């Protein structure tokens, strides 16, 4: 059985905990604390260490899902959780102050996961804030990080099917990469 470790990162309020809950087939492990930054994200709790969930994609693929805290003051957890990860689902809420800048900043922090497997961006809350569009995200990413190939999707983290599509895209990319990287036996 192949095992993948996939990380969920992005700013507070992007929907990381919700996405992992939607996807996980086990009860998720959460480390939520009362949120004192209600002016930044109006939600009662926030993740301060990690979220954890699991999903079996088919008979051969088990995926361990780890969510990071969104706030930069917890970046030591990003480092810890990055160590075993092969891929990243970067979630950003479209109603953030400057969501494209958020995505670019997180890409800088997690760019090594692109080298190791792949990165996919999921834009949440586009029903609340219709812009920026996916095309604008893609253009900004290409301009800032021409070295990265990062698909952009709009997602609802509460929707398991949508999140599964994003996850499958990432896993397919990682497996293709593994296949290409394998030495050819003559």
């Amino acid at each position, binding site marked *: 059985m192949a095992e993948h470790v996939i990380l969920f990162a992005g700013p507070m309020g992007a929907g990381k905990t919700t996405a992992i809950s939607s996807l996980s087939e086990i009860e998720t*492990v959460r480390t939520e604390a009362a949120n004192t930054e209600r002016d930044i994200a109006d939600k009662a709790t926030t993740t*301060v260490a990690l979220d954890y969930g699991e999903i079996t994609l088919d008979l051969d693929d088990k995926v361990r899902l780890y969510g990071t805290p969104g706030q930069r003051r917890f970046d030591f957890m990003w480092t810890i959780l990055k160590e075993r990860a092969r891929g990243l689902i970067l979630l950003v809420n479209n109603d953030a102050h400057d969501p494209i800048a958020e995505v670019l900043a997180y890409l800088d922090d997690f760019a090594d996961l692109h080298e190791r497997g792949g990165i996919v961006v999921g834009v949440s809350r586009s029903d609340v804030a219709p812009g920026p569009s996916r095309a604008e995200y893609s253009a900004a990413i290409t301009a800032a990080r021409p070295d990265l190939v990062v698909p952009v999707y709009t997602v609802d983290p509460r929707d398991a099917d949508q999140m599964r599509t994003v996850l499958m895209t990432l896993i397919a990319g990682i497996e293709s990469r593994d296949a290409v990287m394998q030495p050819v036996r003559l």
Partner: protein
Amino acid sequence: MRPPAHRDPHIVGIAHTALRDLAIRCEPMVYAALITDDGFEVAHTSEGVTQGDRFASMSSSVQALSEAVTRELHLGSNRYVVIASDDGHVIQLRVPGVQLVLAAMFDARGTLGSTLSLMRSAVELIGLAVRSVHDADAGFAPSVQPGGMVTGPFGESLRPERASGMASVD
């Protein structure tokens, strides 16, 4: 509505008083901070020992992880967290009844029993004082002066009994 604890002058005053008191009574204590559940520092003791913000964030994560493990393993309520190392130890305790955590680092001179006892005494004091601030908001009589002194309706001190500093770990 009260501001968050780390921006509330009354709570910050209580924290400073309690930490100062703890530092005086516990020489092996290198650093201590009162933090919010989501990793903001309300107050700390020594300057320059460690990066205060980072200590607060790490303590918050460790507290949440330990409580998650306790919950997952159905071990009841988490009492305290100890990180024991060659050159010292860290203890974390939740302040009863409020969303705050006291975290402190001790050098190798500190024994776990005595430091834990002092920490327990400190969180009781902090909890009592912070709850009295909340009670005062709700119209109850106990009140807290900005310096952290807690008084009841007749001006009596509500400080809990001090620990001897010699106690066993239970």
